[in-house]
């Protein structure tokens, strides 16, 4: 028996939670589908200090607060994975492995997944020294030497967190300067435990039971080297989680969903918000804004197309 809703939101990060709050307060019967952890990427973020009005909070706690707030107005949350979206005039169907959700409007807020290096040893040693979450795993390398791969905000922020435990943190970056925000760069350069290896890529992660080191190649000189480390924390960007929508609606070359200023996709009644959409600024604050915009647009769509 398919369950019927006004609005189905796919994804429980900041965009989905903000959309859920507005949809529920609009007294629309709304369900949010989350396949993993509420908060999405921010569930793994140790501290967020650029969400206006909140000076410092862990990403997990911020997401839990958003969840409680939305649920207090009646948002339902189901921990299932959306596998397909299809039209059943005049509704949409969001399918999971064993259920169907009927919706008048759908808000896609599936966010982005972290990129993997794609080098030998990475998959085999994941959870054995290879990590995509320094906040989760840094404590298991007390007084050890570890590596962080990447040069953006996530890499530097997580690298700084890792210095609480590690003896030395090598930041391995393929360019000769960081992409991270200036304030994080200043902190990183001032931190005596942090050391930078520029113009360098990881070609292999080496280890039997656990990580023993990384093979490196300097992209300018071509010189190869080996760096003994006990852990490799990888933060090399994200790609939108839109595989399940392939061919269904227009996306850019990177797989981001094309939307207009009201977060409307090319499909009637289908909206996209947050990191999953084209030209997202990929911040908690902008994702929240996207979610709110999408919920307001969805409300307007439902009022126009389903006058009660």
């Amino acid at each position, binding site marked *: 028996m398919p369950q019927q809703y006004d609005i189905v939101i796919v994804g429980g990060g900041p965009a989905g939670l903000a959309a859920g709050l507005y949809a529920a307060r609009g007294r629309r019967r709304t369900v949010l589908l989350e396949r993993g*952890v509420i908060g999405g990427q921010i*569930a793994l973020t140790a501290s967020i200090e650029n969400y206006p009005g909140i000076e410092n909070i862990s990403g997990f706690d911020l*997401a839990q607060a958003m969840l409680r707030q939305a649920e207090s107005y009646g948002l339902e949350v189901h921990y299932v994975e959306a596998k397909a979206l299809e039209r059943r005039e005049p509704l949409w169907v969001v399918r999971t492995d064993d259920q169907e959700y009927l919706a008048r409007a759908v808000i896609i807020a599936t966010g982005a997944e972290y990129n993997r290096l794609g080098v030998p040893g990475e998959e085999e040693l994941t*959870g054995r*020294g290879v990590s995509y979450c320094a*906040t989760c795993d840094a404590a*298991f390398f007390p007084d050890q030497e570890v590596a962080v791969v990447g040069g953006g905000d996530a890499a530097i922020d997580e690298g700084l967190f890792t210095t609480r435990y590690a003896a030395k943190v090598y930041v391995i970056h393929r360019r000769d300067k960081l992409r991270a925000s200036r304030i994080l760069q200043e902190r990183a350069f001032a931190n005596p435990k942090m050391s930078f290896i520029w113009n360098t890529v990881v070609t292999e992660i080496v280890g039997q039971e656990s990580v023993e080191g990384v093979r490196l190649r300097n992209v300018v000189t071509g010189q190869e080297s080996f760096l003994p480390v006990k852990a490799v924390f990888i933060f090399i960007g994200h790609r939108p989680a839109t595989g399940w929508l392939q061919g269904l609606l227009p996306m850019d070359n990177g797989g981001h969903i094309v939307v207009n200023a009201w977060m409307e996709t090319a499909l009637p009644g289908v909206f996209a918000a947050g990191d999953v959409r084209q030209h997202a600024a990929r911040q908690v604050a902008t994702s929240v804004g996207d979610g709110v915009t999408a919920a307001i647009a969805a409300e307007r769509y439902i009022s126009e197309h389903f006058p009660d």
Partner: protein
Amino acid sequence: MAKPLDVSDAQFEAEVLKSPLPVLVDFWAPWCGPCRMVAPIVEELAEEYHGRVKFVKVNTDENLDTAMRYGIRSIPTLLLFKDGQLVGSVIGFRPKSELKKLIEKALH
């Protein structure tokens, strides 16, 4: 109510290794988001397997020795022990169905 039992480094041998029942050990820490998502699932499993499997939690902030002894490099990690032997593990946040598979394997 069958709530998972908090176990320290000092209690690990008595509560886990010498347990007559299979034991699922949830290694976690308060600041770890995914760990806090695993917790309610482990609590549900503790209810479902009450009397057949024992469920314990090890806070790795306070009990790093046990975590290091079993080579934990990432949390959440769930380890399953039977007759004092490590018989299975799951690293990272995984759906309930996968955790059930791990437990069922040890029961048969």
